[in-house]
């Protein structure tokens, strides 16, 4: 039998988890990634750019499945009725 640790250690990990760890301050923070390159010892590469691209990746993924379920439809309908005031509510 595998220990909990082994089971967890072999679990698949998503890109986002990896980016959160290997990028300087994680995906959710605006931070600078330190690179040392081409004659300048330390260059700060603004991570905001990177965060933007991670978020746009997620968004484009989400847009891919834009079919609306009947549940969502009902929710939106309810919200509309709510916003306009339920007609039968005012009858009393």
């Amino acid at each position, binding site marked *: 039998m595998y*220990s*909990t*640790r082994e089971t*967890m*250690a072999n*679990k698949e*990990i998503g*890109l*986002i*988890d*990896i*980016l*959160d*760890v*290997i*990028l*300087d301050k*994680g*995906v*959710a*923070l605006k931070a600078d*990634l*330190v*690179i*040392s*390159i*081409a*004659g300048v*010892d330390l*260059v700060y*590469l603004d991570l905001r*750019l*990177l965060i*933007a*691209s*991670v*978020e746009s*990746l*997620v*968004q484009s*993924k*989400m847009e891919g499945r834009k079919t609306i379920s009947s549940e969502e439809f009902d929710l939106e309908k309810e919200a509309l009725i709510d916003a306009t*005031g339920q007609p039968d*509510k*005012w009858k*009393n």
Partner: protein
Amino acid sequence: MGNLLYLYGLIPSKEAEQSLPALKDFDGNGDIYMIPVGKITAIVCNLDAENYSEEMLKERINNDMEWLQEKAFHHHETVLKLANLYTIVPLKFCTLYKNQDSLENAVIENEAKLLDTFGLIKGNEEWNLKIYCDDHLLKKQVGENNPTIEAKKEEISQLSKGKQFFEKKKLDKLIESELEAEKNKTSEKIHLQLKGLALRGDVKKAWSNDVTGRKEDMTWNSVYLIPKTKVESFLEEVRRYEKDMKEKGWKFEATGPWPAYHFTSF
């Protein structure tokens, strides 16, 4: 223009006697190799300076998710393999040095700190915990069991229908803020208990749903440095929380062991 050095990690030279496995470099053409700098050994690969200018990296990181994904996985997998063999201070993605001299100088300057860090991470593992919460389920409980909200509900039921509509909207807002407070309080309590099993524990920023792409909210994101002997109990504890709180809408996801990215710096 010659070569840049891509730095994956730093290990104690004592451990460098164990030879490096054959691991492909960042470009997939050559191999990674070691550069000993006194008591510390750097694990690096060469990168063609012409192909890896600052502009090119920015451009790729900004506009080429496929590239970022491939290279981030490469970095992660390489450092993870190294972490299984050595006590390693892992470097962040795309840490580049313009030449061997600048790398060596950086290592020498930080030698004392690095040796301390090896002492800290040896025999310990870094684990990440993310706690998610189904607001819908929890909101129901907060709405039903919270005295402030109970009282408010009672008050509203006495009002005229027209006023009730607006007051109910306000009540929803109240439930919302009580919910956030409740989620934080619970997560923090769990964090403090888990921290008791760890050497160190830090709270990170939780991600928005845009980033996770999930319907549950991430309420907590934390990282722990745990002695290897205690990892099993730590994970059992997480599992116990998961079991006890699942029905109330809570989810716990632990990942690890990670190379000690969070608890080291260079």
